[in-house]
């Protein structure tokens, strides 16, 4: 085949050479080369309000593993699916004795102007959220926008509710260790990941 290929191409005439500049020899860095749950990035810090009105800072979660997602109560597509899967995961975490003590779920509203504390509380009740382990959080519009941008464009500027379905797994040192998408999010798999991180996290 190679000979035929050459014959055809030689008959057609040589193609123009496009030798680019030779690549620079690599300055080698050491990277983790295998394994699940690499450090993807540092999670953005935030200050938000919980349903009971208390102020919650991401720094308060140090030592705990958390799943963080962005939803809004009028969301017609992925958010109800995310919330249903988190409800399942909440049950799994509770059964393993991890919920609240070692691991948290955090649903942050993308739409704080509509999603008042009362609206969010009704939404949380719909999914049976246990306030000790599944937090619904709300920021000012400015803080929400800043957080969405800091998380890599969860929602597009000017079209705030056109959003991704990312679910972030954050370790006890505030580092993103996995990003799930709703469509392929498996609560049992997430439980294994959380359990793996809690086994190495230092409770504070």
């Amino acid at each position, binding site marked *: *085949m190679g000979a035929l*290929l*050459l014959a055809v191409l030689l008959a057609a005439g040589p193609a123009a*050479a496009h030798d680019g500049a030779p690549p*620079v020899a690599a300055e080698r860095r050491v990277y983790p080369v*295998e394994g699940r749950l690499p450090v993807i990035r540092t999670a953005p810090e935030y200050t938000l309000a919980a349903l009971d009105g208390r102020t919650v800072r991401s720094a308060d979660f140090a030592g705990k593993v958390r799943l963080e997602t962005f939803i809004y109560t009028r969301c*017609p597509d992925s958010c*109800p699916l995310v919330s249903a899967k988190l409800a399942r995961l909440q049950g799994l975490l509770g059964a393993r004795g991890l919920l609240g003590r070692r691991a948290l779920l955090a649903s942050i509203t993308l739409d704080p102007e509509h999603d008042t504390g009362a609206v969010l509380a009704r939404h949380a009740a719909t999914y049976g959220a246990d306030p000790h382990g599944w937090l619904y959080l709300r920021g000012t519009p400015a803080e929400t926008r800043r957080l969405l941008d800091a998380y890599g464009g969860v929602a597009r500027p000017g079209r705030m509710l056109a959003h*991704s379905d990312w679910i972030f797994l954050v370790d006890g040192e505030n580092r993103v260790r996995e*990003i799930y998408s709703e469509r392929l999010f498996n609560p049992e798999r997430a439980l294994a990941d959380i359990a793996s991180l809690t086994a190495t996290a230092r409770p504070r």
Partner: protein
Amino acid sequence: MKKTAVLTLTLCLLAGSALAEVCMSPYVKRLGGREKFLYVWSVAVDPSSEDALAVIDVSLASPTYGTVLTSVPIGASGNEPHHMGFTDDRTKIWAGTLFSNRIFIFDVAEDPGKPRVVRTLDGLGALTGLHGPHTYYALPGRMLITFLSSADGGLPGGFAEFTNAGDLIRVFKNPAEAPYAYDAAVKPDINRLVTSSFTPYRNYKKPLPQWDMKDGGNTLLVWDFENRKVLQTLTTDPVPLEVRWSLKPGRAHGWTNSALGDSIWWFGQGKDGRYSARKAADLGKGCLPADLRQSPDDRFLYVSCFLTSQVQAWDVSNPQKARLHDVLEPGVQPNMLHITGDGRRIYITNSLLSTMDYSPNFWVRLAHVGPDGRLTLDPFFNVDFTKVPGGPYRAHDMLLN
């Protein structure tokens, strides 16, 4: 959960049951309706021009249907634009270059008809130890990029993972016994990644008659995807290129096209859990199968024969024994194919590499797929890339939006 939540969930699941868009990472957000824009990653023919991302109007109702709306230059020629891919949220296109080892990140969310470069990843050799970014495979919030070479243009190739913002997460080098790299495809439901093998920069940078035809791979690697660990090395005919998993959930098999074997190979898992590979089709001597695509119903494979100027449709109802179903002659040296989510249309370009193209006529054409799976060339859709303003261009990879 309460009844209201259950009802909402049911409606959401029904709304999401549209046909999957094929030959793309399963993590990429699907296109809601019919395509409006066709992006074409284009190599400037004239060294004094700039390589560019061209945008073709493919909105049927538009008065400018079938014409180039704009081409976004990237500052120079000689980069060798090659493949590209969407981020999972479909807001960005990552488009890379095989000679200059760069990746251009275009925003296509703000105005899909006017892509805009928002970041250029340069110095990838020093950063990753790799050269020649090839496949752009979206993962949630990240991109997995295969590279054909090590930073010095030799071996091994490998892949690197970046955040969607363009920051490096980690690098994997191919193992010494299978150092050639090319494509990558993930089957998340069975936790498997398969990668294929081409030839490194030291070879493909030369005009084809000067290539060392023995400097190429003949392996597929089967990986434990979640742990990024090689499980098996499979052997095929020389230079297996595209990796296409069966689209049916749970199915642990797929296909690849061997460029120098003129063949399609099946790979899959046996009852013992081990993977094997075997030839599923002979494409005819001298085909040089450059691209391999599949229909959304898993019934047909479409392969472009770069040297014999055909697009062949193969029935893979029996996945290990493909049967030739139809042949289309779209024009000289067809290469990249891009099939729509409904499986009814295939856009075709005809540049492979500037070092391999043997015709100076470059175009983008369209084939329709009939209910019987047969292909018909659209006589009214023929975009001449030698006449595009800013060009002439060699038209290579495509994406739809």
